């Protein structure tokens, strides 16, 4: 207890860390003396009450604005590549030899068409960075760190070309496309894309899938569908060519896929009101066993498409009732005593739930801010008209901080976030 009252009426109150963070769920007279009813731009790391690190420009950005993703990967030679994708279709690589000038070198077009302003989903697999989107047209591409430019088309044995490295040949398209929900008549070739990209069992996985029938130009959306590549063959997505490739539509649930995580031996498809687990079976023909952890109309799911983030065996996401971490063993609520403040702010985001808008909250786990400065946190960035509020959850201290950044979604004076931050 912080307060000590002596018999003569003198008293003292002491406050010290480790701190409990934001507590808005009790009257401010009843909260712990380790907690605060309101604070901003202080960090509670290592039991000190420290003004947060300055948010400053480190580098110039890529020449093409509105970065939709930033990541790094190691190529087959063991060389690291830090890359960005921009809203047009330019992909850039970081080149430190160009500093203090602009360090971003244009690699080439990463997509068949420009205008991809939605955040990309990306995943490193077999020393190659893969990325996918469905914003203007569905596609998936890759860059291996060796070739001059990224690759986003595939030529098949019948000489047809798909505008996605995840594609189906002209010959096979009527058969494969015709087995999708609704049995559409497909000419082909098919370009496959997905809002979310992951990997499990040496198979790339697209979730919330769209396909483009290049023969007719029609785009078909399958927001309940997951499509996976053949085992160990990230460019083979045709189940008539390799039976370990295939797709599954979750028609028995009423919501759409809003994210994807793979933890250990299992993967988790997030829906807006539920989570479906899938685990490898060892069978090529039926490679996954699916289990809706719950298929109720309402339940713990991911309501903010870009709030999912993963660091090792831990994922984090925002559901309707709380913020959760997901491990191999369970889902654990972490909103704690800050939950009501966070959800009140989320409710004030004008375009809540619109995945293609830059005005959506982003969630991301950061292990460090820079080498040697560890602060393992889940960060939830909530955009407002005049600023952005970053809620920071410390996995070590299990507390929440609020940091306001003078960055706006529509205020001309300030830049805006266009994708989540990333530790590269």
């Amino acid at each position, binding site marked *: 207890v912080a*307060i000590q*009252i002596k*018999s003569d*009426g*003198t*008293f*003292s*109150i*002491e*406050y010290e860390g480790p701190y409990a963070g934001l507590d808005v769920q009790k*009257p*401010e007279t009843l909260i*712990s003396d380790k907690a*605060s*009813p*309101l*604070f901003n*731009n*202080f960090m509670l790391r290592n039991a*000190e*009450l*420290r*003004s*947060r*690190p*300055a*948010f*400053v420009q*480190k*580098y110039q*950005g890529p*020449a093409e*604005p*509105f*970065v939709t993703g930033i990541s790094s990967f190691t*190529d*087959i*030679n063991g060389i*690291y*590549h*830090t890359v*960005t994708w*921009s809203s047009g279709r330019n992909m850039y*690589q970081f080149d430190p030899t160009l500093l203090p000038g602009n360090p971003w070198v244009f690699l080439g077009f990463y997509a068949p068409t420009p205008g991809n302003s939605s955040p990309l989903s990306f995943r490193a697999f077999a020393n190659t960075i893969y990325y996918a989107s469905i914003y203007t047209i569905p596609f998936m591409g890759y860059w291996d*760190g*060796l070739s*001059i430019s990224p690759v986003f088309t595939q030529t098949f044995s019948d000489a047809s070309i798909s505008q996605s490295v995840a594609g189906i040949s002209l010959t096979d398209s009527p058969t494969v496309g015709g087995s999708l929900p609704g049995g559409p008549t497909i000419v082909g070739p098919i370009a496959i894309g997905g809002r979310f990209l992951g990997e499990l069992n040496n198979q790339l996985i697209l979730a919330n899938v769209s396909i483009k029938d290049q023969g007719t130009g029609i785009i078909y959306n399958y927001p309940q569908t997951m499509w996976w590549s053949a085992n160990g063959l990230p460019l083979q997505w045709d189940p008539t060519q390799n039976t370990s490739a295939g797709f599954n539509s979750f028609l028995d649930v009423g919501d759409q896929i809003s994210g994807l995580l793979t933890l250990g031996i299992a993967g988790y498809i997030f829906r807006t009101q539920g989570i479906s687990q899938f685990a490898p079976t060892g069978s090529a023909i039926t490679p996954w066993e699916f289990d809706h952890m719950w298929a109720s109309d309402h339940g713990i799911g991911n309501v903010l498409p870009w709030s999912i983030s993963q660091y090792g065996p831990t994922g984090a996401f925002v559901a309707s009732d709380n913020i959760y971490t997901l491990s191999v063993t369970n889902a654990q609520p972490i909103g704690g005593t800050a939950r009501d403040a966070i959800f009140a702010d989320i409710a004030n985001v004008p375009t809540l739930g619109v995945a293609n808008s830059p005005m959506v909250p982003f969630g991301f786990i*950061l292990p*460090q*801010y*820079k*080498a040697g400065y560890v602060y393992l946190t889940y960060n939830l960035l909530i955009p407002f008209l005049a600023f952005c509020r970053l809620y920071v959850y410390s996995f070590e201290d299990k507390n929440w901080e609020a940091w306001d950044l003078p*960055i706006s979604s529509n205020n001309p004076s300030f*830049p*805006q*976030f*266009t*994708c989540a*931050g990333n530790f*590269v």
Partner: protein
Amino acid sequence: MAASNGGTIAPLNLALFPLTNSSEVSFIYIFDPTNFNDAVSGSFYIYKTEDIICGRTGTINRVIISYRDLGVATITVVLAGTNDQQAIVSSTEPMTIGTVAASKAIVTQIIGISLTAQNLSLSITRDPNAGPVSITKVRMEGRVETTVY
């Protein structure tokens, strides 16, 4: 084996945040853990509200702050509370902490600030570009009527 196209021999080991302004110029920002003096954003922390003994009016007559010397900073210490007229009352004391040498040592200062009120709370505010602040402990001392009626 084909040679790599550019790249680095080690990861950057940085958390990078891409931003774009209204002139469609992009930037890469970081949270810089070598600099705790954000030039644009201020900071504040409000401690728990203390009713000391509910229904009794207490007086705080000094605040003691221990902090790590990260450099010169200006902070404002505020005591706030309520009185019997249901009004909010407060007392404010700006102060400078830290040294140019930024010794990183923990230093303690006693602040002569006083407020008589109920539901007392302490807050500490740092303006934008007012210097780096790292508080390790705060102590408030005062007196309250304890006679049982």
